[in-house]
């Protein structure tokens, strides 16, 4: 990629991880995905999360699955994710707590106005407190307005970064800080609200299956780019606050995605988005088909 290069004069003084990023990361590679992890340089250098935090692997899958990282800008919010974003090799914005979908609305429109002939993807990535409680108004309003970006919620079912307080996505009855007698109301059903609010693609899943995460991220971004808002809710349990060991995060996610469990994989695709995905698929097949023999004159 032309724009991701190092000036020759500065090459020898650049940190090794920067050189690796320029030389072996997957900027500009259309087939990029989670399988690049461990082979190519990742767009996330390190993370400052707890050992074994499922959010850290979710973050790596998200970064590996962006279809267009060289032209993607991410918007975060306050919380555990804001400790990771500074290590991420795409432009990303942290401004305040809960305003991520408002910032992304302005950002997406600015990029669309400034670069009318270029695809610039915007992706929001925030926790459940930011998405569902303090920022709910702005989350929903961006969907009502049909803002063209993907919203990802890392749902760890509480405020993790501030020490485990109840959030709107905490399960009913769970004893958390600020819910000393157990949460008194149900986990907010944001995926359903997202569908009713005009999202064209909504998926609710854990991050135990990287293939599924990659597909959801890619569909979410492609549909947002062309049609309208999309929403992904990824269960990334806070092992610290639910009293699990660092190696138990994966099992926790698997247990939560079984049939009838609260994170059983669910997906909604609007008719418009379905038609768009079918069109992309058809175009892909056409490109792969052997070239027709030109008829002789």
């Amino acid at each position, binding site marked *: 990629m032309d*724009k991701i290069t190092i000036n020759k004069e500065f090459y020898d003084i650049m940190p090794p991880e920067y050189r690796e990023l320029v030389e072996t990361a997957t900027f500009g590679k259309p087939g990029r995905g989670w399988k690049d992890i461990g082979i190519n340089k990742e767009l996330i250098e390190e993370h400052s999360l707890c050992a074994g935090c499922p959010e850290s692997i979710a973050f790596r899958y998200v970064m590996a699955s962006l279809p267009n990282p060289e032209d993607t800008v991410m918007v975060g919010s306050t919380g555990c994710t804001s400790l990771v974003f500074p290590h991420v090799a*795409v432009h990303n914005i942290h401004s305040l707590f809960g305003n991520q979908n408002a910032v992304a609305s302005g950002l997406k429109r600015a990029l669309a106005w400034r670069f009318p002939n270029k695809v610039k993807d915007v992706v929001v990535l925030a926790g459940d407190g930011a998405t569902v409680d303090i920022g709910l108004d702005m989350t929903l*309003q961006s969907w009502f307005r049909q803002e063209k970006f993907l919203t990802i919620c890392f749902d760890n079912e509480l405020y993790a970064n501030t020490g485990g307080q109840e959030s709107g996505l905490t399960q009913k009855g769970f004893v958390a800080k600020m819910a000393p007698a157990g949460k008194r109301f149900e986990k907010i059903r944001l995926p359903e609200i997202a569908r009713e609010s005009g999202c064209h693609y909504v998926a609710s899943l854990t991050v135990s299956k990287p293939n599924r995460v990659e597909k959801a991220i890619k569909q979410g971004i492609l549909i947002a780019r062309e049609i309208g808002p999309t929403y992904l809710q990824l269960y990334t349990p806070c092992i610290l606050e639910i009293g699990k060991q660092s190696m138990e995060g994966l099992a926790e996610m698997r247990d939560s995605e079984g049939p009838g469990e609260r994170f059983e994989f669910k997906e909604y695709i609007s008719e418009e988005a379905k038609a768009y995905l079918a069109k992309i698929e058809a175009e892909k097949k056409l490109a792969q088909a052997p070239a027709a023999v030109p008829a002789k004159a």
Partner: protein
Amino acid sequence: MSTQSLVGTLNRKGQRIVEPEYLFFEAPRQQVFMTGSETVREAIRRAHLDISIAYPITPQSEAAALVGELYTEGYVGDYFRGESEFAVMSQCAGASFGGARVFTTTSGPGTLRAYENFPMWVGARLPIMINVMVRGINSPLNIQPDTLELGMITDTGMLIWHAETAQELFDYLLKGFIVAEQPDVHLPIAVAIDGFFVSHTKDMVMVTPPDLCLTPYDPYRSPVPCMDMEVPPIRMMRDPFVMKSNYISYATHASWQQETRAACERSRKHTVRLLGGLLEEENADADILIVSSGTAVAQGREAIRLLADEGIRVGIVKIKTIRPWPGEELRQATKNAKIIFVPEFNVVGWLAREIKASIDNNSRVVMGPHVAGGMTMPPEVIVEEIKKTLAKRKEELVHG
């Protein structure tokens, strides 16, 4: 790409891009009789604006809606109504992070609803222009002019200019973009006017031709990266400062705050060049001075005329920029005054407090007269305050 190279070319609307100084000082001007809200529209028409985001609140609603008309006419790149002032200011932030020139308007409770965004704009170095049409923030509900909200935003780190008239509003809006966007400044700017008194009254305004506009904002002259993925980012930092409880983290936060305040001070030279100074003085050698900002200055001038009829000579100092604060300029301008009156449209007298903190021998400052909650300030109120205070001081001199 330097936007200077675009001078002489046409923007997407077909307006000719001219040097800002040409637009401000040399371009022909035509007189138009219009309201403050219409003045906002005419300034923004010439501002080469990318994005504006609006929210209704009296008295700024009309101006915000008129900017929307500019959008449909093609003068503004994008425009929409946000869901609250907090959201609007965040949307403005997003657009500015993405490299757009951004404008919005607000009033009173809306300014406070949005408040958390202002220091964030400053820390992120977003040169957003916000037109604050001041309004009371008290309960019971009040839509009338009151400058209390300006006192509340003085320490957010934004540039704050206070226009007295519609003409100043027109000029400050256009000049404000250029000062705020200077690489050594690069801060948000609030151009304030007194709601209703300026927004809803008609005045003669000298405007430049509508087919000429400012040079566009060039986000690549920003002191911080534009978030558009046009310049390779690679990682922003090795360690997020928020999670470090160590000296480097504290020093980073402290020095960045010092830098943004220094940037505000660095705006002085650009401001002096474009506004002709941070203050304006009239008979400042008089023993009695009125010092104020906004429409209180206009009322002060009338009071001076009434007092002159009675043989009392009073001078006036008008503060044009609340931030940067013209502390040294005020010290100089008031050095010969024996008594200083600060008429204000708010109950606390925050401007008088600032003046007191800046000048020597501050017992000279009379914190008043004040009106609040939308009351007008007839010049007679200022006259009465001055005469009453003079009589009292004379009495103290005789009997004290």
